[in-house]
C-alpha cells in the first residue's frame, strides 16, 4: 500500500510537468544537438543531457535551424541568437494580426542562416550580418478559404542569393544589399527545389520545368519539362556528414489510371523514394501510405537538420543517413520528435528530455 501511495505521489508530480513541456524541434548548435522545448509560455533550449542552455520567457513562437541559430517571437519583439547564444533583440511595432491569435507557443519558420523574418504588419526579412531588409509580404498567403502563414518556408537562401516566393513569381534578391536582381514566373506551379552549382542558380518547379539563372549576368535560361520523366518530387539534398548532394526522387510505384484506381480501392498508395548518393548507384525504397482524405492525398517534403522528412498526413517518414546507410524512421501523427544532425530524437517522458530514437528496421 505504501508503495502504491509513493508511486501515485511520484506520478502526480510527474504528470503536470510532462504535460506542460513540449518538444518543438532540434538543430545542431556548436556541433552538438540542441533541442527547443516549450515549457508553459517559455521556450527552453536544452542539450542532450537535459541541461538548460537558455530560457526565453513569454513567447508566441520559436524556431531553430542548423548554421542559423534560434529565434523567439514575442508580442513586442523578436529575439534571435547564433551559436554563441548571445541574444539580439528586434523591436516589433505591430505584430502580424494572424500571429496574435496564437495562444500556446508554436513553431514558426523564422530563421535561416544569416536571415530572420520579422513578422510585423509589413513583414520583412533581415540580413543579420549587413542589417539590410527585404519587405516580404509573401510569408502570408491566402488560398482557397484559408490564410496560411508560411514564414520562411517560401524562401531559399543559396550563396549570395535569396529567392522568395511571392504570388506567382519567384523573386531573386541579392542577400547582401537586399535588392531585387530579377523575377521568375512560377508558371502557376510551385517550387520543388533550388540549388546552386558554381555561379548558376538552378530552380526546379513542381510541374517539371525549371530555370538556370546566372544572376550576376542577369541571364535566365528556361528548362522545359521532360514529359517522359516526371517524378512527383526531385530534390538535391545533403545528408548529415556528406560533402556532396544526393538526389532524392519520389514517384508513385505504379503510374497510370488503373493502378491509381486499384490503389484507391485498397485505400492505400505506394510510392518509391529513390536516393542516389554521390558516386553511387540509385537505390529505391517503397513506402506505403493511406489515402486518409478521400479524393485527395497530400504529402509534403521538408528538410530538417541533415534529414529529409516526408509528411504523409498520418505519419512522418524521416530519411536519414547513419553509418553510411540510408535509414527510414517512421513517426506516427501527433508524436513529438526532433531531428538534429541527421539523427532522430523523441520525447523521453521519464527523463523529461529528448532521447535518441532507436534505429529499427524499416516499417511501412
Amino acid at each position, binding site marked *: 500500500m505504501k508503495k502504491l501511495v509513493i508511486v501515485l505521489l511520484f506520478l502526480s508530480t510527474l504528470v503536470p510537468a510532462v504535460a506542460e513541456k513540449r518538444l518543438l524541434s532540434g538543430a545542431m548548435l556548436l556541433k552538438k544537438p540542441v533541442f527547443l522545448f516549450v515549457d508553459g509560455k517559455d521556450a527552453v533550449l536544452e542539450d542532450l543531457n537535459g541541461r538548460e542552455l537558455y530560457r526565453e520567457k513569454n513567447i508566441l513562437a520559436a524556431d531553430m535551424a542548423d548554421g542559423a541559430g534560434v529565434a523567439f517571437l514575442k508580442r513586442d519583439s523578436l529575439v534571435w541568437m547564433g551559436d554563441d547564444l548571445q541574444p539580439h533583440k528586434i523591436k516589433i511595432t505591430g505584430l502580424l494580426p494572424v500571429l496574435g491569435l496564437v495562444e500556446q507557443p508554436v513553431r514558426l519558420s523564422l530563421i535561416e542562416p544569416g536571415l530572420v523574418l520579422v513578422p510585423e504588419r509589413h513583414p520583412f526579412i533581415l540580413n543579420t550580418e549587413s542589417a539590410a531588409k527585404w519587405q516580404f509580404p509573401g510569408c502570408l498567403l*491566402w488560398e482557397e478559404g484559408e490564410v496560411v502563414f508560411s514564414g520562411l518556408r517560401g524562401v531559399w537562401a543559396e550563396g549570395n542569393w535569396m529567392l522568395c516566393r511571392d504570388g506567382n513569381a519567384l523573386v531573386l534578391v541579392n542577400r547582401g544589399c537586399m535588392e531585387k536582381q530579377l523575377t521568375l514566373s512560377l508558371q502557376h506551379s510551385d517550387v520543388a527545389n533550388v540549388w546552386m552549382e558554381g555561379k548558376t542558380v538552378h530552380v526546379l518547379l513542381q510541374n517539371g520545368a525549371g530555370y538556370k539563372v546566372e544572376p550576376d549576368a542577369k541571364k535566365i535560361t528556361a528548362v522545359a519539362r521532360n514529359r517522359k520523366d516526371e517524378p512527383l518530387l526531385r530534390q538535391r539534398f545533403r545528408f548529415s556528414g556528406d560533402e556532396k548532394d544526393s538526389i532524392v526522387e519520389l514517384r508513385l510505384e505504379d503510374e497510370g489510371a488503373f493502378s491509381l484506381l486499384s490503389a484507391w480501392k485498397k*485505400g492505400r498508395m505506394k510510392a518509391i523514394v529513390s536516393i542516389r548518393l554521390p558516386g553511387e548507384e540509385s537505390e529505391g525504397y517503397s513506402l506505403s501510405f493511406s489515402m486518409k482524405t478521400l479524393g485527395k492525398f497530400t504529402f509534403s517534403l521538408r528538410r530538417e537538420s541533415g534529414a529529409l522528412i516526408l509528411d504523409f498526413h498520418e505519419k512522418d517518414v524521416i530519411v536519414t543517413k547513419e553509418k553510411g546507410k540510408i535509414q527510414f524512421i517512421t513517426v506516427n501523427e501527433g508524436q513529438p520528435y526532433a531531428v538534429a544532425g541527421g539523427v532522430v530524437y523523441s520525447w523521453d517522458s521519464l527523463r523529461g528530455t529528448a532521447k535518441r530514437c532507436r534505429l529499427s528496421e524499416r516499417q511501412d
Partner: protein
Amino acid sequence: MKKTSTLIFLILFQAMGLSLLAGPVLVLRGERCDYLYDAEGRQAWQGTELFAVEQWKTLEPAYYFAVKQSIYRFRDGVISCSGRDWKVKVKDCLLPIPSVAVSIEGMVSGNCIYLPVRAGFLVLDTRSQSQDILTHQWQPSQIPGGALKLSIPQFSGAKEQLWSLESGHLRHLVNGNWKEVVMVPEKDLIEAHLLAGDRFVNLLLFKVTQGDLGSFRTRLLSFSADDGHQLMDREFGGVLKNPAVDSRGRVIFEYVKASIFSAFLGRNKVRWRVIDPGKNKVKDDSVSVGDKRRHLFYVENKQGNLLLVVQCKNGDVFVIDPFNGDSRKLKVGKFGYDYTLIRGVGNGVFYNEKTGNRVAVSFDAGSGGS
C-alpha cells in the same frame, strides 16, 4: 535550409480560387453577377451595363470587390468606395497584403462584406454605410515544419439572414448569436458548400466512398431560411457538379451520366437537375447543344430565376431555361475558349482576356438572342 512541396490531387472537384490578373482590367466574380473593372478606362461593366468609376487611375495591388455598381478597394488598412467619399479603417485584418490586384471572392454576400479581423469579422453594410463586428473564435492550426493555417468560414444569406459553414458546422445567426443547425459528418466527404436563397438554405456535401468508383454521392440538406428547420435531406448517386442556387433557394446541378455509352454518344448533351426543397421535388432534364459542351455559366434573369448558358467547343452559345427546358442558340456569333463570360442580370459580356475584346449579349427570351 528547409523546403516544402505539397502536392494535392483533387480528383474531380476543383475548388474556387481567387482570380488574379496582372493587366489593368480585373474580373470581379460575385455571387449573382460579375464585374469587369477597367481602372485606366475609369469604367466597369456589370453585365452589359457600363458605369463610370471615378477613382482610381491605376489598378494598384489591393483587394477589390463590387456591390451594386460601386467598386470598392481595400488597401493599406482602408476600404474606399469608387463613387462616394467614404472611407472605413480596418484594424487587424487577417488577410495578407496583396502584391497584385486581387478580387475578393466568397466574402461578399448581399450588400455586405465580411472581412476577417482579429476579433471576428468586420461586417460592412455598403447600403447603410454601417459597420459592425461579428465575433468569431479563430482557431489557428499548426502545419508541421513551421507554418500556421487559419480557415475562413463560408458565408451565405439573403434577406438579412446569415448562415456560416466552418470546419464541419453549419450555423445560423439568430439575434446576434450563432445557433448550430447541423454538424457535417466528415465520413467520405470531399467538399461541402453552402448556398442560400430567400426561402431555402442548402448544404451540399460531395462524397465518395472508398473502393468503388461508382460511388460518388451528393447529399443535399435544405433548411427553411426563416426558422432554420430542416425541409429536405436527400442523397443522390452519380456525379453532380456546378451547383447553383436561384434567388429563392432552389438548387440546380449539372449532372454527368457516367456510362461508356454516354461518354461516346452523349457528349453534345447538357443534363441538369432542379431541386425544389419547398415542394420536395426533383426534376431532371437535358438538351442537345450541337457540339461538346465546354463551359457552363448560370445567369440570373430579372425575375431571379437562373438561366443556363452553355459555351460549346465550336464557340456556339446556348441559353437554356432549366425550369421549363426551353433552349435556343445565341445568334450573335461564336465565342471560343479564350472568351469568358462576365455575368450580368439577364445579360452578359463575353470577354477575351488576351485581346481585351468585349461583346455584349442579352439572354432575355423574346429578344431573339441578340
